């Protein structure tokens, strides 16, 4: 059953067509890759899916329902959460607090209960903090839970972004270049982690990545974009040998 479906999605910024009639479909439990050269429109695709931009035309279905034009925070509540290419952590907050913000959308108590410091909201806070701590163990950051997130190393910040997104308990997790800036050792760990997120936490993963080895080993299906157009789609083995993809990355054969 398809969890996410893009139907001929187009977005134009003035005269620039950033994404042109892109269509693809994700099934539940997929590890799906979205690749393409710089400026191909990959992150724009993410922004359309998560409601940052409204597409000029086309439709996006999540679990069969249209989410076109739904605001970001509602989309997060429906079950799509993302990380950012240029890391966007809440820098002044601690590592744990960052993850609690992610889990906060499941809160039940009202603002008044918090302002009066009543037991329901105290218990809820405790509960959310415990949940966040569990997630930090998954991404191996529990040792630094009380450090300000701005003080973490680059690789750790990327992992924290994943934990924060996972805290919203999404059905679909979007990772925007999760391995960027990581060393080979960290990349291997991330590879295992993303697999684990899919297998043990049952999330469907859509990721953008530039590291070809990373994408080819991890993803089961890949879509390739170039200049906003979809040029290929299929399993890694087919993508690797697709002449259009090779041309897009290396230039035309002479």
């Amino acid at each position: 059953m398809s969890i996410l479906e893009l139907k001929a999605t187009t977005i134009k910024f003035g005269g620039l067509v950033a994404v042109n009639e892109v269509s693809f479909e994700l099934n539940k439990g997929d590890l799906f890759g979205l690749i393409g050269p710089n400026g191909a429109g990959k992150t724009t695709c993410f922004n359309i899916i998560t409601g940052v931009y409204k597409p000029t035309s086309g439709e996006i279905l999540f679990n069969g329902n249209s989410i076109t034009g739904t605001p970001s925070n509602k989309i997060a509540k429906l079950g799509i959460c993302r990380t950012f290419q240029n890391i966007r952590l809440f820098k002044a907050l601690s590592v744990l607090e960052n993850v609690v913000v992610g889990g906060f959308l499941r809160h039940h108590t009202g603002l008044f209960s918090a302002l009066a410091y009543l037991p329901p909201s105290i218990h809820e806070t405790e509960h959310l903090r415990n949940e966040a701590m569990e997630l930090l163990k998954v991404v191996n950051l529990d040792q630094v839970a009380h450090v300000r997130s701005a003080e973490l190393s680059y690789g750790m910040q990327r992992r924290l972004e994943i934990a924060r997104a996972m805290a919203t308990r999404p059905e679909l997790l979007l990772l925007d270049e999760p391995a960027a800036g990581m060393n080979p050792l960290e990349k291997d760990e991330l590879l295992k982690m993303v697999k684990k997120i899919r297998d043990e936490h049952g999330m469907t993963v859509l990721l953008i990545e530039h590291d070809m080895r990373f994408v080819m080993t991890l993803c089961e299906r890949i879509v390739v974009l170039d200049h906003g157009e979809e040029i290929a789609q299929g399993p890694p083995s087919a993508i690797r040998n697709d002449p259009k993809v090779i041309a897009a990355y290396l230039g035309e054969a002479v």
Partner: protein
Amino acid sequence: MKFWIVRLLSVFGAILGCVGIQAVANTQNDYTQRLIILAGLYVTLAVSLNLINGITGQFSIGHAAFYQVGAYLSGFLSVRFFQSAHLPPLVWLVAMVLAGAAAAAVAGFVVGLPSLRLRGDYLAIVTLGFGEIIRIQVQNTPALGGSYGLNVEPKIQSVAFVWLLAILCIAVCRNLLKTAHGLPFLAVREDEVASSAMGVNVTRIKVSAFILGSAFAGGAGALLASYEGFITPATFAMDVSFIILTMVVLGGTGSITGSVISAMFLSYLPEYLRGLKASTGGPLTLSGGTVIGWMIAVVFAVAAIRWVYSDGAKSKAQRLGWLVGALISGVVVQAIVGWGLNHIGKLQDAKVEVGQLRMVIFAMTLIVLMLLRPQGVFAHHEFSWHWVAKLLKKKKGATA
């Protein structure tokens, strides 16, 4: 069970504390009583602005407007309805605080709406404009006394209620930050796009912050009106907004402790300066040369301190030596420049009362602070018993 006992005790303690402040104030003269009341009102104003400005990150510089809305609404209601209401004065006062808070909350909601689309400087301009609109509108409304001001009957003076509101405001902000509900507010300050992607309803958070913050300012306004018995639009001029903002920034944006302490300090400082007496008994005056000398000395000292801390290689003793040196040379520079200007430039006869210099001293304090500690005195730290215990332990460890 234990929770409720602690809760009951702390509420009881807060009320007792306020009654205590009232008791102390009753033994003082009118002037000191007024200082105690103003300090309480400014604490409320600074802490509530800190909720909007420091915690939620919405740069608002029109806080005096909410203060004014609360003051005028309660003043107007008092004049019209107190006689016919037949309520005891203190009950009436509570009702007025609630009414002022409600009116200011509505105003806060209205101002909160543009903040959904505007950020930073642009929002600041809107809030500034809003503040001026309210003030000038009141100035031109005869029913509210216009620019002559409004006589508020009856005058109900209660130090205890002023401080009760201040403590309530502090408690509400602290509770917010203690529970998970405070985190989305901080998250909106840090990054709106990311908060929204995490499911935070940014609109709702911003508007809540404006409503809450302005409600407390409105309550403070109602208390001011009933204390003073007379309010004019000039009481809520733009510089009041700026003084409140200064309190928040000086204490450390986001720190409740910082706002409380700097509100008390900055509301007392001008009065202290005004009260300084020369040995002859008149107000203390300085000659123009001396004032300029001091300003140059402060700049000199700041530069020296910055230079000392710019190099990490120096040892503690060396740093201390340099700092003492900087301070001494600052005083020396002041003496020489002051003497020189007084004698060469004939500035000796240009006498200035220290009380009139308070705005200069305000400005200098802020400049020095921004250079030496841009994050504010308390930065993001908060007072806690845990912290006191840790400090005491450290002291014990040092002496043992």
